[in-house]
């Protein structure tokens, strides 16, 4: 199997604090890979390095066989690396339709003429708008697509998080706790959305909700203090003593 996204001895430190230590993560084509670990394990820091918001201290990141370690974030996006945010990071004053259409126009900007991008009104981009509308409809957002995002219910905003990332038409999707803050029982809607994602998208899921992780993931990596503790299938991880110690040890006493 070929890795779609791979890190090679990735390290990051803030001063003396080592937040990522020699991480060799490998995401295979079509992967349903979960990244778990206790609070402060450095999961979000890792995501931020993958997307280019943070620059790694050493090591490298490879996307589809290309070294992207030094690419600016927006170029990583145009190469098919998209993410969602743990805490909603949306466009409060735009409507979902505007936000998703903006993403699609940005993705296709090289095929649009300068007039299309700059002078002709947005509604002339019917193909892009229709694609955005269809995507929103698939995520149950069609009925609120023309309302300002800040007016949307929290659960809808969580779905819009995913919609914006999907609009990039990603090869690799990084989901940073997609079910964060969603009340218990309502995370089923999110799981259904994730389960329906096409297999040509490889997914790295960061999640605290273990029921979601074990229902969704086919492979799990456990991160502790910035370093990889163990990787394996859900069954292997569930049976691993070191993992149990990390998650349960303190409570068992």
């Amino acid at each position, binding site marked *: 199997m070929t890795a779609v996204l791979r890190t090679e001895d990735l390290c990051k430190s803030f001063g003396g604090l080592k937040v990522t230590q020699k991480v060799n993560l490998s995401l295979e084509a079509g992967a349903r890979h979960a990244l778990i670990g206790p609070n402060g394990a450095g999961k979000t820091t890792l995501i931020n390095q993958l997307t280019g918001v943070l620059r790694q201290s050493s090591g490298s990141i490879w996307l589809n066989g290309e070294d992207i370690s030094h690419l600016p974030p927006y170029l990583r996006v145009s190469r098919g690396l998209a993410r969602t945010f743990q805490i909603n990071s949306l466009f409060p004053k*735009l409507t979902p339709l505007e936000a998703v259409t903006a993403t699609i126009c*940005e993705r296709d900007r090289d095929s649009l003429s300068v007039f299309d991008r700059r002078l002709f009104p947005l509604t002339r981009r019917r193909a892009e708008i229709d694609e955005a509308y269809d995507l929103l409809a698939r995520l149950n957002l069609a009925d609120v697509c*023309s309302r300002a995002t800040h007016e949307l219910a929290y659960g809808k905003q969580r779905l819009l998080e995913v919609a*914006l990332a999907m609009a990039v038409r990603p090869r690799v999707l990084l989901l940073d706790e997609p079910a964060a803050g969603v009340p218990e029982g309502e995370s089923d809607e999110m799981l259904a959305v994730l389960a329906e994602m096409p297999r040509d998208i490889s997914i790295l899921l960061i999640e605290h909700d273990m029921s979601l992780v074990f229902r969704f993931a086919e492979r799990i990596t456990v991160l502790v203090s910035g370093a990889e503790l163990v990787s394996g299938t859900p069954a292997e991880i569930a049976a691993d003593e070191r993992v149990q110690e990390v998650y349960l040890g303190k409570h068992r006493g």
Partner: protein
Amino acid sequence: MTMVTPPHITHLARRERWSRAEIAFWLAWLAVYFLLPKHLMFAAQILITGLFALSLDLILGYAGIVTLGHAAFFGLGAYTAGLLTKVGVIEPVLGLFGAALVAGTFGFLTSFLVLRGRDLSRLMITLGIGLLLFELANRLTDITGGVDGLQGIAVGKVLGLFEFDLFGKTAYLYVLVVSFGLFVVARALMTAPYGLSLRAIRDNQQRAVAIGIPIRVRLTNIYTLGAVIAGVAGALLTQTTQFVAIDSFGFQRSADLLIMLLIGGTATLYGGFVGACAFLIAQNWLSSINAEYWLFWLGILLIVATRYLRGGVIGGMAKLAALRPMGKKA
């Protein structure tokens, strides 16, 4: 029509369609030419200031870049247009292009300094650049005339055809045509995907990056465009008054501009024009009652506008319109 337009498309199109209020707005400026022939110079000044405020709206309202030194570009445009006539380029439209080029180049180069920082450092850097240019204009008396300003500017016929007259008729129409033309361009940009990406950047930079918008490039771009339009506004003032005052570069001009835009309403395209109207007419009227108390009234106006009139005059009118949706349908 064979197909019914879906409501979500209609919703998007609302932003793009020229509303009756917009058409009435521009027709009113045309009407001024016929109805207020004695006030054309003042009306032209309002239009020029409105155009200048529009340029600020593009970078502050749409892109969210705060600045206290926008007069730098106005001043550069004003002096360029003035100096061009001294070296023999007296045709005004050429003067506009020259001013646009100089102001735009300077805007592009300084954008890298300005965009680096956050809001507070942006305020300080733009303020610094403005002060720098003011002092340069002050010192280089041989070129700029120093504190006395640039005098004796002889402006030629517009396109070699229309001569500026004593009553300001040609000047007014010239300013109106240029302002409207640039407004149409700015409006097209803001309703295009380009404008949408700017609104996205202003709303949430972090996410804008994450959906693949090259924000640095986009902001440099709009900052440069803002500089170009400000430069043209400066050039228009030079050409219609045949004089460049050193306060073209002044801090007061940048500050007043910010006030006008806030009074009128940001990110509305019209806020600048409406604000310039309100500000200059109030200034004219109040200072004719008592020149010293103008700032007192301005202070009250500012507090009331920011405290009780969120979104400025335009925002207030939009709220009023929303209060009676029944009347709108009719």
